[in-house]
């Protein structure tokens, strides 16, 4: 099955061939590298920008105002924090000119910990992003969702923040993307040849061209539709990205050990998020854990929790909880530090146990 990097690449290819994408750009996004995580390899509209995040967002906005359809990349979510003023402008443009200009741009950036990224390659961005009005925000956990959300992002006339998790970028999917060929074939078709050094890579890619799968479609994952990853009856876990998988592991363990039945909701779109699915699940289970890895103060999960309280307060059987990253200035490099900073399976198990043990 395709990895998330391959899925994004295919969606971008579909976008430039069929949906009017004019520019895929950012630091190291064009040849020879095609993105430090390979998500833009072989794309015909991909180009390398200067090392300058502010210029990237500004130019993307300008391109969008001029009727182009840009997809820009900030190389790491960790390096998007010098552009918050610009992201606010992007988000307010359509509103402040009372709808005169459309802003059909996609900003993609990779987020989260899990690759021993240390202080500057482990940041989450969803909490700050969600605080900025005017954007739609997605964060897929699987290759097929990445594909379908990218197609939706490109088609949408509004700015879309396409976040994707560092820890899952090379993980293969469990579900085939429509038109996706067999794994080995796909690799041969669209993965650029590589080499031990940049010189070798440049050399190997001089004449290389990808062979794109012919059967790709405009398969969309609609915005604001969460995915019930597994059904359950005792407690709802509202999460996304890497923690979907950790929640699954925790749930399997709890099923086995405690006989607890966990329902896992993968939000996929963080804003505007799927209230209906979340609230219905909580109405059913009466208990909820919101789970992510961003730092805990003004955490996006606190927003979800507040909405849950607003809508389901009297239906909850137990105190709802947030399990988030530690309240520290960064994720330390040593594995011990990273594990202590980011919720792990055992922490999830403990929280779920705690919630299920509460008797009002």
């Amino acid at each position, binding site marked *: 099955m395709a990895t998330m990097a391959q899925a994004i690449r295919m969606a971008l290819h579909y976008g430039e061939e069929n949906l009017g994408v*004019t*520019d895929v750009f950012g630091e190291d996004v064009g040849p020879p590298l095609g993105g430090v995580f390979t998500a833009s390899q072989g794309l015909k509209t991909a180009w390398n920008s*200067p090392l*300058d995040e*502010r*210029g990237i*967002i*500004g*130019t*993307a*906005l*300008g*391109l*969008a*105002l*001029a*009727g*182009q359809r*840009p997809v820009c990349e900030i190389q790491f979510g960790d390096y998007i924090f010098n552009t918050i*003023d*610009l992201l606010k*402008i992007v988000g307010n*443009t*359509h*509103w*402040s*000119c*009372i*709808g*005169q*200009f*459309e802003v059909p741009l996609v900003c993609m950036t990779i987020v989260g910990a899990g690759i021993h990224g240390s202080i500057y390659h482990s940041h989450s961005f969803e909490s700050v992003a969600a605080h900025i*009005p*005017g954007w*739609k925000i997605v964060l897929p956990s699987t290759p097929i969702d990445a594909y379908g959300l990218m197609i939706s992002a490109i*088609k*949408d*006339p*509004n700015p879309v923040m396409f976040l994707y998790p560092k820890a899952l970028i090379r993980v293969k999917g469990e579900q085939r993307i429509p038109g996706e060929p067999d794994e080995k074939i796909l690799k041969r078709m669209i993965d650029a040849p590589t080499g031990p050094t940049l010189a070798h890579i440049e050399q190997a890619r001089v004449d290389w061209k990808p062979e794109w799968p012919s059967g790709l479609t405009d398969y969309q994952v609609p*915005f604001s539709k969460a995915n019930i990853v597994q059904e359950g009856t005792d407690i709802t876990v509202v999460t996304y990205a890497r923690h979907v998988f950790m929640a699954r592991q925790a749930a399997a363990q709890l099923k086995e050990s405690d006989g607890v039945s966990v329902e896992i909701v993968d939000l996929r779109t963080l804003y505007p998020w799927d209230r209906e699915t979340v609230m219905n699940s909580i109405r059913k289970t009466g208990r909820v854990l919101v789970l992510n890895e961003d730092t805990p103060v003004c955490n996006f999960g606190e927003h979800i929790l507040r909405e849950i309280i607003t809508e389901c307060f009297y239906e909850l059987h137990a105190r709802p909880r947030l399990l988030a990253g530690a309240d520290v200035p960064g994720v330390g490099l040593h594995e011990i530090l990273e594990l202590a900073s980011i919720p792990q399976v055992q922490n999830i198990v403990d929280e779920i146990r705690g919630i299920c043990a509460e008797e009002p």
Partner: protein
Amino acid sequence: MKKDVKLKIFDLMVTARCLEERMIKMSKSADGHFWLGGPGEEAFNVPLGMLSRPGRGVEYDYFHFHYRNAATMLAMGMDPRDELRQANNRATDPFSGGRNFVNHFARVEWNVCPVTSTIQTQWLIAPGTARAQKRHGGEGITIVTCGDAGTAEGDFHIGLNWATQPGWDLPLLFIVTNNRYGISTSYDQVHGAGNIAEMARGYGMEFGIVDGTDVEASYSKLEEVMDFVRKERRPYLLEASVSRLYGHSSSSGANRVPEDSETDPLEEWVKKLIKAKLLTRKDYQAKYEAETQRMNEYLKEVKQEPAPTPESIYDHIYKDA
């Protein structure tokens, strides 16, 4: 410059001045909350508008304005009532529906991109529209303006850098209107060496300086450099010295600066036209009074128009997919 062009510029300068003065008065009454604008920049801003090519799409010019470009908009054909609608925060304000400060234009039919108050960010956005134009071909260019103090932001340089990427010189006219102040901080306090325009050197970019209080100098320099950018499809950095006749904004009083402390470009132009026998002082006074009167009447009219509704705050957050 032909006679009718000279007089057209005169007319537009007077209109611009009277419109701004009308708005200044509004900011001191219940009719407006705030004013900042361009009295003192008309000799430059009117020619800029006259020589530009407004329209919709990459064939036409794109504009990323600073907040002192009313005269440019008038020269492009703006109905002064539209500006008054914004100054009076009417729902009919075509730029922002009563949401934004005055002189914060946005007009998609003319490629006037939304003006933001955040100093210098427009220099990051301009390379985007210019890149689309470069790819498209034709003669459409992107025009971006800013003040002198704002050039201290790193964004000033980012704009220049993106406009000179190898193989991607952009059809982008960068304009700095240097009034030698950022609010209360004088240029000499915060600007080290040389002129601002000379920063273009580091990018191998053409540049120039013009007396922006002089109509003829401004007109001919703009003619020259706009032609250069249109035809050569390469960027240019132009610095224009201008005046700030009513101070920074209504927050700093919006009172007329002391006589002779700054050049009044309108007065200078009037003197030249009188000398050239194209105008009499009386004509000028009559025109000035008539325009003042017209603005008063426009305001009366505009004030009758509906205010925005509370619910409207939620309009246009997203464009429907």
